[in-house]
Every structure is written in structure tokens, then in C-alpha cells.
């Protein structure tokens, strides 16, 4: 049951990501691959970092999924910030709610793993409180009816990016070389 709930939440996060970036076809094509790779890496990290006991396998799997969800949410928000993509307050609150809830689950599960016997009832209570807090945030975010956004932006022709992007990088590299030339004599003296 818990697995189904987490999978549903992961799908909801994927939908939020698609909603935020799918309008920008080029960025979305790159972003979803990076986010998926990021989620897989975080999952591997959480498996490696966990204590390896069979009785805690479910808990570890649950925590790995939650950590991946949180990492994907942070990743997509970093993408939107880097590319100056406009995010509505409702979308942002939804994403933040998902992330905070997942982070709290990770912390809660980690503590539970260590203090299983004493922490059980408190774990239940805190888990419920975290869910209620997130639910409150999502309810606040969606208190007003949402308008349907335009599915896709007017895009440039592909040639523009192919021409400009390497030139920008070349200019940056030249600038770095120039800065290096100023810095280099000092490094040599050291």
C-alpha cells in the first residue's frame, strides 16, 4: 500500500516537472533525462548509505524513493531558476510541499531505523503531522481556480541555438584565457 502511495506521489512530481518545463521543448528534452539520472543516482546513494539489514529493507527502499523525489523537485526548481522560467505561486507551493514532505519522511525513517522500539508511536504522529502540513500548503496553493496555460511557447528556429551556443562558449573560454593570462604570472612566482 505504502509503495503504491509513493509511486503515485512520484508520478505527481513528474507531472509537476512536465507542467513547469514542457512548454520549452529543448530544455525539457534535456531536463527530464538529467532529472531521471539524478533520481537514479540518489536512489543508489541511499541504498549504499543505508544500514544493510533485511528487516529494514522496506524502510530503506521507502527512504530511497522519498530522497529521489525530493532531489527531483529541487532539481526542477534549480532548472527554472537557472533558465529564468516563470513559475506560478501555485506550482511552486505544490513542488515545495512535495519536497518538504519527502525530506521529512527521509529524516523520520532514518530516526526510526535507529530507535525502532522507542520511536514507533512518535514516528506515526510526526508522519501524520508532516502530511497534514503539506496538505495545508497544497490546499492554500490551489485555493483559487487555476487557469489553463498555453501549451507551448513560440520557439526560435533550431539554427539560432546551434550557431549562438558554441559562440557564447567560445567567447567565455577566451575570456577565461584572458583572465588566466593576468593571473598566471602570479601563480608562477608562487
Amino acid at each position: 500500500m505504502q509503495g503504491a502511495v509513493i509511486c503515485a506521489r512520484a508520478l505527481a512530481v513528474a507531472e509537476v516537472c512536465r507542467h513547469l518545463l514542457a512548454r520549452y521543448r529543448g530544455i525539457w528534452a534535456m531536463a527530464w533525462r538529467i532529472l531521471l539520472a539524478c533520481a537514479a543516482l540518489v536512489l543508489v546513494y541511499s541504498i549504499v548509505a543505508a544500514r544493510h539489514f533485511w528487516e529494514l529493507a522496506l524502510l530503506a527502499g521507502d527512504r530511497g524513493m522519498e530522497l529521489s523525489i525530493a532531489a527531483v523537485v529541487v532539481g526542477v526548481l534549480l532548472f527554472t531558476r537557472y533558465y529564468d522560467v516563470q513559475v506560478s505561486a501555485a506550482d511552486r507551493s505544490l513542488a515545495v510541499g512535495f519536497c518538504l514532505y519527502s525530506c521529512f519522511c527521509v529524516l523520520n525513517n532514518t530516526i526510526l531505523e535507529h530507535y525502532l522500539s522507542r520511536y514507533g508511536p512518535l514516528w506515526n504522529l510526526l508522519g501524520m503531522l508532516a502530511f497534514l502540513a503539506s496538505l495545508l500548503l497544497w490546499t492554500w496553493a490551489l485555493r483559487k481556480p487555476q487557469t489553463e496555460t498555453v501549451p507551448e511557447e513560440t520557439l526560435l528556429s533550431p539554427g539560432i541555438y546551434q550557431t549562438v551556443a558554441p559562440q557564447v562558449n567560445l567567447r567565455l573560454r577566451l575570456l577565461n584565457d584572458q583572465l588566466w593570462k593576468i593571473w598566471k604570472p602570479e601563480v608562477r612566482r608562487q
Partner: protein
Amino acid sequence: MSLTLILFFGFVAVLLLALGWAVWEPRERRKIAADPCSVEERGQRHATYLPQIRQALAPADYEFLSKKVPRELQRRVRRERLGVALAYLAALRGDFQSLLRMARVIAVLSPKVAAVHEFERLRLTAKFAWRYQMIRWKLLTGLAPMTQLAGLSDLVSGLSVRMETAMTELGERAAAAAELASSINRRGLDVV
């Protein structure tokens, strides 16, 4: 505290910091977002002061002054020139950042984006930021030759010229889209 606790709590702390940074919007960014024209204008503003800056940093001037004026005045001139050089360096960074912003706009509005270019730009930007700080520190301590700053401006102005093509197309397409939208609206009104 066990290693597992540290690894997970540390990771979550990093995630929360990144989340805060991603969601937080400084006042400057809001101002730029509200005024799209500022992005285009800033790209060319400071690079046009290059001749004046070159004049201000010319060693010939300084040599002339060293023969004609007392030491106290020479120190003052040096101080003021340092101020000019630092302000110019900061302005150049501003120009560069606005050009990078334009590059990001082009990436966002392109149907196909190459991850290689995007990662390279990210890496070079980080490198630039680090070196910029080093140069600034060298200028402050009087170790950097000020004349070399002139070369930086050429790079920025050259880039802004090439960006113009892209921005022109962007403008044309936006105008075409607006025209299309208004014609659809007009037709809608006629029907009603």
C-alpha cells in the same frame, strides 16, 4: 551519531539549502524580470566606454604625471585609477552576465538544446566567477597590470554583436505571434 544518520541528515540539509536558493528570488532578479528591455540594453552599455577606460589606464599618462606632480598627487591618481579599474571590471561582469542571460533565453526558446553546450557554459561561468575574484583581489593589492583589462571588453562587445541576430529573430517572432493572436481575437469578436 552513526554514519547513516550523518549521511542522510547531511543530504537533506543540502537539499533544503538548494530548495531555499531555488525558490528565493532576490529583488534585482525581480526588477530584471519585470523589465525585459534592461537585459538587451545592459549588454552593450559598458563596453562602449572602452576608449575612456583605455585613456584612464594608459601608462603614458602615469609616466607623465610622475615627472610633473608631487608624490601625494601621484598616489591619489593611482587610487582613483584603481577605483575606475574596479568599477570597469564590475561593469564588465554585469555586461557578461546579461549576455549570458540572453544566451539562456535563446536556449529556453530553442526546440533543440545540446546538453554539452549547456554544461560547458555552466563550467566556464563558474571558472569566470573564480578568476574574476582573483583579478579583483590582484587589482586591490596592486599586483595586476591594469592595461590588460582592455582586452576583456572586446570579448564582451563581440559577443553582443552576434547576439543581435538572435534577438532580432526573437522580436520578429514575438511580433508575428502577437499579430496572429490579435487577428484571432478580432475574428472571434466578429463572430459574436
